[in-house]
């Protein structure tokens, strides 16, 4: 269980690779977070965000149709969505990527491959800051 995180929060996991979505889902499950919806890219994710309410977004960077960074910018430019914490989980970890994501308003950034511990650490950082 992650401190300061409601175990029922609704999480949207966005990745074009089903394997990675499974890994993220299982890692969240190991932290007691089971209310997870999957999206295959930014376009699919925006459609799901339009229909449903989510409390947290975890997204990859490299995806077809809409890259993670463009998805992040779309989320941050929407009055309805901009307050949702956004975690980028990606193999794209060059300095310029991290800086671009930070400027676009990312909440935290995890470099693949990641561990459950690093995911927990990032969740704590996001939700503790949010509740402070």
């Amino acid at each position: 269980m992650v401190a300061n995180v409601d175990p029922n929060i609704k999480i949207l996991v966005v990745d074009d690779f089903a394997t990675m979505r499974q890994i993220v889902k299982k890692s969240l499950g190991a932290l007691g977070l089971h209310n997870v919806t999957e999206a295959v890219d930014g376009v699919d994710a925006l459609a799901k965000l339009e229909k449903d309410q989510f409390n947290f977004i975890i997204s990859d960077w490299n995806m077809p149709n809409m890259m993670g960074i463009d998805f992040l910018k779309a989320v941050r430019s929407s009055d309805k969505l901009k307050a949702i914490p956004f975690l980028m989980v990606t193999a794209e970890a060059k300095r310029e990527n991290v800086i671009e994501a930070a400027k676009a308003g990312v909440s935290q950034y995890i470099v693949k491959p990641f561990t459950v511990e690093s995911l927990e650490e990032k969740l704590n950082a996001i939700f503790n800051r949010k509740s402070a």
Partner: protein
Amino acid sequence: MSPHNGNGTHTTSLVTVEDLSAALAELLATESAHRLTLLRETLLGIRSGFDPAAVGMSSTNIPDAILKLSSVLNDSSEASHKVFDLVDSQHKVIKQGEKHLADLEQLAQQGPISPDAALAFVAKYRALNHAMQAVSHDIVVSQEFQDLCGQKVKKVMRLVCDVEVYLRALLEQLKVAMPNPKSAAELEAEQNVDQESTDALLKELGL
């Protein structure tokens, strides 16, 4: 040349306007022909610079490489999902083991355990052990995809190297200035930063 005569009209004693026009047309035609010849020679040069193997490369090897990479994607994805399923079955076996232990604990709390009950427990636990071994074996075997995928990736890597050689030869023939290939150290410097460096950078950026 068109010198004036006494009555102010142009003479055409040396070269007529028509002559000049024809000469210019001829010059233009020659210039165009010269350029066309140069172009033809260049194209012939490019064609002769190609190893016939390059034709096979573009018509067969490259499409085959795309198929190979596509099957690597599928195989690795299937293998990952197989491991997920096997781990799920392993969890089920572990849970069964926990239940057997809880039953045994409860039995022990009620009084001395009979030899029959102890033997029944041993039999159940042994069966679970076998199930665990079978799942572990399946997990190990599921990794064989790495060998098959590795062979396909190696073939594609060889093709990429061949294409690089042909491309360089072609660019040289076209006299295109090429930078030197990047060194391993330069390429490494362009690689991703790790989580620790990312965290330090995020902290610098106020996150």
